């Protein structure tokens, strides 16, 4: 697997921090990669290493929609609410996800499997309506095909769980070009 080489670990990044300005957002991004969200203690830790006041760190976190202060599900479903998707029925798509998963936009399912967010545009407008599940993009959806897709994820997860091992790999079988 050709993972991006420089997806450095959070701690490594902090350890390497040399006071160069502009590192705050990359630090937060690696913290979020590492924990799945940005926990309280990461804020204190980043603040103590960089000397940036906690309140400023917090201000940056809340400005950008990418950052989460609460844990996210294993699968982050990002439903596109962009223009092309909007005129191709994104509203029904988002409502279908909410209904299928039993959560609202911004929430995480109780089993910690799915988090639902909306994004402005995924850049696959010609395949609208589009959603992303983690890094995989799915296009030309209808409410019916979407339900099937989400159930497929859930089924795969359950199968992996009942086997007791390797759920991580089973879940990671993604179609992102490798």
């Amino acid at each position, binding site marked *: 697997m050709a993972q*991006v080489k420089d997806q450095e670990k959070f701690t490594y990044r902090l350890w390497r921090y040399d006071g160069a300005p*502009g590192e705050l957002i990359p630090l937060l*991004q690696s913290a979020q990669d590492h924990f799945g969200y940005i926990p309280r203690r990461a804020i204190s830790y980043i603040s103590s290493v960089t000397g940036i006041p906690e309140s400023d760190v917090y201000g940056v976190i809340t400005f950008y929609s*990418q950052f989460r202060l609460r844990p996210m599900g294993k699968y982050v479903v990002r439903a596109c609410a962009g223009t092309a998707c909007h*005129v191709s029925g994104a509203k029904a798509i988002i409502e279908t996800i909410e209904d299928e998963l039993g959560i609202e936009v911004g929430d995480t399912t109780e089993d910690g499997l799915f988090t639902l967010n909306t994004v402005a545009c995924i850049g*696959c*407008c010609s395949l609208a309506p589009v959603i992303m599940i983690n890094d995989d*993009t799915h296009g030309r959806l209808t*409410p019916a095909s979407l339900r099937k897709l989400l159930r497929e994820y859930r089924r795969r997860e359950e199968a992996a769980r009942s086997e007791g091992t390797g759920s991580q790999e089973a879940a990671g079988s993604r179609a992102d070009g490798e």
Partner: protein
Amino acid sequence: MARKKRAKKVIVGMGTCGLSAGAQSAYDKFEEILDANPGSFELSRTGCFGMCFCDPLVEVRENGARVFYAKVTPELATEIYKSHIEGGKVLEDHVAYSRDAAGEGGTEADYLALQRRIVLRNCGTIDPESIEEYEAAGGYAALKKALSEMSPDEIIEEVTESGLRGRGGAGFPTGFKWSLAAKQDSDVKYVVCNADEGDPGAFMDRSVLEGDPHSVLEGMAVCGRAIGASFGYIYCRAEYPLAIRRLTIAIDAAREKGYLGENIMGSGFDFDIKIKQGAGAFVCGEETALFASIEGQRGMPRIRPPFPAEKGLWAKPTNNNNVETYANVPWIIVNGASAYAACGTEKSKGTKVFALAGKVRRGGLAEVPMGTTIHDLVFKIGGGIKNGKKFKAVQMGGPSGGCIPAAMDDTPVDFESIPATGAIMGSGGLVVLDETSCMVEIARFFLEFTQSESCGKCTFCRIGTRRMLEILTRITMGEGVPEDIEKLEKLGRQICETSLCGLGQTAPNPALTTIRYYRDEYEAHIDEKRCPAGACTALVDFFIDPDKCTGCTLCARKCPVEAISGEKKKPHVIDNDKCVRCGQCVTSCKFDAIYTK
């Protein structure tokens, strides 16, 4: 190794668009076939060719002749292998586009006939992860020329002469912008590439980054030489993981080959590039907010002057251009300014890439000479409207733009004509709307977007957009009052005048242009409580298509007010007097049988 090259090459389009349509399974199938029949063909991947409506797209290339197959499933992959690759017989029924070795004739040739590929010259043709293929296509020749044969002033002159204008929206002359940064006396300067692509409905920057990342790196390096900068940043939105990965690969490869780094090609010129990921904020596409974001702060716009050329990133002289702008540069350096200026209109030179999306039959990317009409884009390239519906308008320029009605579709696309309609060029997103799109609803949609993306610095932008959104929402709910239209116009003008950055200055555009061209639709909502397009759920009726309904009873069970009735296994019907228009039936139907009118 002097092994003879295989004649046939299979190339799978693997941009994000191709992958989301299933390109990976097509690729896997070809790989499996190749494993079973080693050496029978060559397998490779490429970026987006622009024909997204055909995704997954697979090309079979032989001695210069190209055949593109549409919607390739694993089954079709097997057929292509048997018939075309083994048997030499093209599967005509599945061909999306073909071209013989001389580059002429073939199927669906009109899709590309009007196009002129400068920015997209390599997209969908070369493997974006291979620097060798980029070099073979003439890559890095521009950098070589710029470093060995041209002085920085000559580079700037060439770009100025070409008439290239910024593709990020405003159309600022690129050569002039470079000359401003070049004039500054500073030991440190920066080259920034704006790859934030915030307009929902635009995806050309993504396609260039995924399909031809080196062209952007090369353009940035040439710019660095011209203005005297030795460091560049690409600010790419985090929603584009594949673009970021391909850029990372490209930067590593360019460093290894000595196109980036110290003393490039022995010229004494140093230049390196770093990627910064955006974190999801539309306003960060605005250049001063973008600098703040790279610096690790909240992405709030700054007051200009000082302009970026004087004090930009880290308060150093900075040149910021859009992805597409940089991708044009190598072509201009190699082919010369006059070749570029030969294309386009008097004041808008060259080409522009448009992202066709929405209700158009052939959605995808199209690169056309400036001055092409909207009609040609929608009908000749886009193939007209989906499902035999009527063309109503195009939305251009995203949340800062406006709607241009079908009656004005002879408007040429360039930096003069489009703003005259009240819309803007923007980054080139062209969302096609048909008779089922409600213009009030579209305006509401964009206000919702700008309202939530307003950074909150300017009062009118922060609160004014909220008021406008409230008014538009109540109109679409059938609760509008007659004064609403005037109120919208007044608020709109005030927001335009009192906002610091482009976000606020343009946020009212979608509402103002739709009022200008579709006042009657606003009035129908307000006076008659009717949505002429049948799109505002609060004002429409729901129906079940008896041909699609299987009588599974699911919708009847979901309906909170028991408005749906029917026998098991027979088509159901909706009683619109009882219906509360919640839309639950639409989302629960497994057969997509419910529609609104």
